[in-house]
């Protein structure tokens, strides 16, 4: 048998003590995240109503069946998807363009850098309140702008397509800075000599972007769009303030639908089931997106 070395004993002690460091974090995660999740899953299989209180009753998949068969649910998915797809597309295109402009050191770039980031620091509720005033059908400045050109008063927030357009504009305005921030960081991380080589080789600025910058930033672009998509699906405060989901339920998003079920009807079982449906919808959209992105990336790999 080999004699036990002192160093080995110390090492063993360290290896044992690692549990001491892991367990508190693990327990915290268990209590604040895993337990509520499992509890919500159980509730989603029950019929629970807080007002008027009804004792919990196990109903199996009834809640889910009811959701899937309701037109309101599919309507909210469509609304959310439209808002997310259009606004994320605009955020990416505008954000990337701004990042490119800032990267090429326009005069006063440091000032613009700060100004462009400001919308991101505002609470969505504030942004929505400001937007509500801006787009007011009688008093809003946007309406004034249109009336200059002889247009009658436009009720932006009560005509469904216009209301969705306003929501898209607000989302884009608030979250484009996030894209600017990340894409700018990405641009600054690119090796400068590659672009110098292209300049010496007489490659035009557009081809440099199309053939070098864009492919090199593709992995980052995919991540940025993914983050914005997932975040976009969670939109609730903006819609709540601006339209409240109306007119009717024409601008109701998934999360607002769940909120209305939970805090207006106090139908807890249904709300939990909706939350899980939301999770499934996000996973489906996310997977489809990542699969599509993977195909694009493979072209450049």
């Amino acid at each position, binding site marked *: 048998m080999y004699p036990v070395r002192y160093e080995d004993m110390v090492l063993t002690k360290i290896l044992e003590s690692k549990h001491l460091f892991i367990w508190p974090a693990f327990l915290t995660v268990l209590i604040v995240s895993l337990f509520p999740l499992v509890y919500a899953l159980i509730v989603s299989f029950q019929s629970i109503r807080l007002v008027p209180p009804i004792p919990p009753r196990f109903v199996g998949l009834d809640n889910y069946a009811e959701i899937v068969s309701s037109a309101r649910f599919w309507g909210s998915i469509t609304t959310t998807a439209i808002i997310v797809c259009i606004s994320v597309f605009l955020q990416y295109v505008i954000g990337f363009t701004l990042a490119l402009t800032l990267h090429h050191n326009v005069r006063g770039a440091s000032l613009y850098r700060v100004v462009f980031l400001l919308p991101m620091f505002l609470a969505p509720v504030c942004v929505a309140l400001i937007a509500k005033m801006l787009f007011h059908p009688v008093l809003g400045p946007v309406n004034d702008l249109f009336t200059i050109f002889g247009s009658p008063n436009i009720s932006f927030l009560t005509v469904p397509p216009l209301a969705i357009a306003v929501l898209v504009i607000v989302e884009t305005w608030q979250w484009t800075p996030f894209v600017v921030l990340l894409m700018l960081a990405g641009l600054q991380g690119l*090796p400068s000599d*590659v672009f*110098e*080589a*292209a*300049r*010496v080789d*007489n*490659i035009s600025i557009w081809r440099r972007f199309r053939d*070098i910058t864009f492919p090199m930033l593709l992995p980052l672009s995919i991540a940025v769009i993914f983050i914005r998509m997932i975040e976009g699906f969670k939109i609730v405060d903006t819609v709540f303030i601006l339209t409240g989901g109306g007119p009717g339920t024409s601008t109701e998003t998934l999360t607002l639908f769940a909120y209305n079920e939970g805090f207006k009807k106090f139908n807890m079982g249904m709300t939990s089931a909706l939350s899980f449906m939301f999770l499934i919808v996000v996973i489906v959209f996310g997977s489809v997106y990542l699969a599509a992105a993977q195909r694009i990336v493979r072209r450049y790999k």
Partner: protein
Amino acid sequence: MRKVFMNHVELKQVSKSFGGIQVIPPLDLSIRSGEFLVLVGPSGCGKTTTLRMVAGLEDASGGEILISGVNVTNNRPGERDCSMVFQNYALYPHMSVRDNISYAMRVHGVEKSEIDLRVGDAIKLLGLEDYIDRKPRSLSGGQRQRVAIGRALVRKPQVFLFDEPLSNLDAKLRVEMRTEIKLLQRKLGTTAIYVTHDQMEAMTMADRVVVMRAGVIEQVDSPITLYEEPINQFVASFIGSPAMNFMEGFINDGTVVLGDQQVTLSPEDAARLCSATPVIFGIRPEHFRRSDHQSELSLTPNVVEPLGAHTLILGSLEGQKITVQVDPRFEVEPDIRCTVPIDMSQAHFFNPTSGIRL
């Protein structure tokens, strides 16, 4: 046929300032057609900036740059018909070796058959046949640099610009690659400007070497002239490995007095140098050898480095450090005073204040 210009690339009073600080005072330099010119100097001496001004990646703050007699000072980099090889290879990371080499030609709408021909030639010339479909990240440093060279040469430019292309490679590969680049350039006959901080690279590759210090050109000459007739103490210390030894002393009646030792001058030097002038006496480590104009110096060896072909003695003489290269059979022990022969026909003398060779 491309018109042949005696002075292919010309820099006339070209200067560069960064925010009010002049890093390169106005300099003149002409590069002959087909010449391999190396810019060498310690880091921060402005050699890379000079090259980048020729490439157009930096604007010249003053003066004119001419390529084939055309003033290109205000032209974009792409309009100068140069290709450049960078220190960090600067390959397009998402393109295969073939795509990297052919990219510029594809963008400029060169015919497909012509592209295939040129890429095929370059790949064969550089021995990259087995790697054409690989991405740069799965290539070694030497292979990457070869791809970068291939990308530069397929365009058949007027001028090759090399910015320390070998400094990221290991020592063995560097020696191989410098021969390859030199042979390639001679074969193609394209004018080349090459920047390096390695005097060995400069000496082995160049037709002419430009030694720079603090933005100023100290000397432009063939490698052997630089070695034998350095214009000043800086060039003398920079060229040659191990570096030249310098000792303070003064001339006295046909000898140089170094502390309490004296070495006899060669007849030419004795006739040239006035008595009683203080000088910096310079002698290369390899010139401690027997010759017709021999003298002797005794020194205390501190370290003895047997290298096989010869032995290096790092010692001290009158409190000054000295490196001596001797025959491997030379009997020497550390800390035991010894006497070495010195070839006085190879001695150099510099003005102690200006550093100019006397």
